[in-house]
């Protein structure tokens, strides 16, 4: 395992009186793909949404504990969520491109937020991001058109390109393929694996085969706690916990 990019220290979170995360401690390694898997309701989505401070946007949501990014706690009272969210990008479960914008405008939306106006920079970043998302060849002649005609898989790759354009250090992905067909899924997995060279990726998935295919490290969550965490091969072939083994063999899901 390489250097730690994000250290999660005893993270608790929930909504109102409901506690969803019961003290998560985890280290996310730099420039690798960490998968978080577990049955429905185990808290994996909440966990990932705490990493870029999106969780707190829901009314009555609360967070306790620390999430340390490169040595600084993102939940420090002085920390600026806006700056943090630029460094940690997110791709959502259902693709959510901005419908009133063209493909091009979608991709550079984050750059424009940060005041980048220079056409040349925007054009080059747009092309680069779309290439990294494996979408460039399919849309390069139509990037000024609205993304409405794109298929689900293409829309999701557009969202990946959009997240990449602001050059985050970490990319969070919340079940990015669950709304897509196998062909689209394969394309996205391909792009995710190529991104690993430059980005730290955390991917939540309920598809354990996907976790096995794609990730370097895997965490297994159950009822708001990390049950097991280690490099993917060990977790899948020689799970230390009985719970993990039961999950992997499909005894519950």
């Amino acid at each position, binding site marked *: 395992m390489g250097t730690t990019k994000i250290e999660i220290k005893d993270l608790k979170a929930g909504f109102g009186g409901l506690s969803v995360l019961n003290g998560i401690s985890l280290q996310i390694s730099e420039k690798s793909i960490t998968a978080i898997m577990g049955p429905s309701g185990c808290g994996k989505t909440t966990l990932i949404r705490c990493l870029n401070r999106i969780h707190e946007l829901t009314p009555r949501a609360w967070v306790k504990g620390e999430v340390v990014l490169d040595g600084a706690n993102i939940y420090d009272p002085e920390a*600026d969520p*806006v*700056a943090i969210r*630029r460094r940690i990008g997110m791709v959502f479960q259902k693709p959510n491109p901005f419908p009133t914008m063209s493909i091009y405008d979608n991709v550079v939306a984050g*750059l424009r*937020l*940060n*005041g*980048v106006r220079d056409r040349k*920079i925007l054009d080059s*970043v747009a092309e680069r991001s779309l290439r990294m998302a494996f979408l460039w060849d399919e849309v390069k002649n139509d990037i000024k058109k609205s993304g409405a005609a794109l298929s689900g898989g293409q829309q999701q790759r557009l969202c990946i390109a959009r997240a990449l354009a*602001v*050059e985050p250090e970490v990319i969070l992905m919340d079940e990015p393929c669950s709304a897509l067909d196998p062909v689209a899924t394969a394309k996205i997995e391909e792009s995710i694996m190529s991104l690993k060279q*430059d980005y730290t990726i955390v991917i939540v998935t309920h598809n354990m085969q996907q976790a096995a295919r794609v990730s370097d490290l895997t965490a297994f969550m159950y009822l708001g706690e990390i049950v097991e965490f280690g490099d993917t091969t060990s977790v899948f072939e020689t799970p230390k916990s009985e719970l993990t083994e039961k999950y992997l063999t499909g005894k519950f899901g």
Partner: protein
Amino acid sequence: MPKINPNHATARRRKAVDKLMTSLIVVATVLAIVPLVLIIADVASKGIPVISLSFLTSLPGWSAAGVPTGGIANALFGSFIMIVIAFLISVPIGVGAGIFFSEWPESRLSTISSFTNDVLAGFPSIVIGIFVYIVIVLSTGTFSALAGAVALSIIMIPIIARSTEESLKIVPVTLREASMALGVSRWRTVLKVVISTGRSGLATGILLAVARALGETAPLLLTVQGSNLFPTSLFQPTAALPLLIFNYGMSGDPTLEAQAWGAAFILIIVMLALNLSTRFLLGRRLGEVRAEI
């Protein structure tokens, strides 16, 4: 890979813009609320002193010196009579149409009529006044409470029809099916089961329509003209509360103007009471805003 560095000046500017817009938004909300508070306060402070038992029970009159005395009894009575008649006309038609829109939505008549209903709902009431003037006042040769009531009912029907339709549509299809599966005929199902389930929505709609009609002045200007006497028949110029407020307010006479405030207070109290009670009845949006869409 080249990094695009966050510009600190830009970040500060964005934060400042965010703060500015937030305060502007709050200012806007305050600006929206202030007039309401002021209006109610002003109507109360200018109107309450004028109100007395004699104000409510006597007719307009003048002292020997030409100073207005008396009260608004005929206006209160006139408004009341017209609302009652309008109610009797508009409720059957409005509820009937609402039932048709809700129970037979697939019919062509339903779509056209429902659309027409919506158009009618948003109509300038003065135009409705012109219509009733032509059709009733001209043909009967006189201003009348009947004409006024008809004008008010034209305003009330779309509101009632719309809210009836909405309230009945909310009743689940399964309820109708269950009733008919038990052998209850369709008409009984609608009248007994569906309407009784949706009855608070229906009542709300009718209350809102009544409240709306109470405040309408423009159509009455053209149909009842106003009067200083108690109405003895439905076919003569009649006084009405909002009309009195308008005439006295524009009269230039300070005593009459004061009476206008008093009448305004009565009117606004009644309207607030009606509207707020529907809020509690159904938690529903107030008045015309819903009905206009």
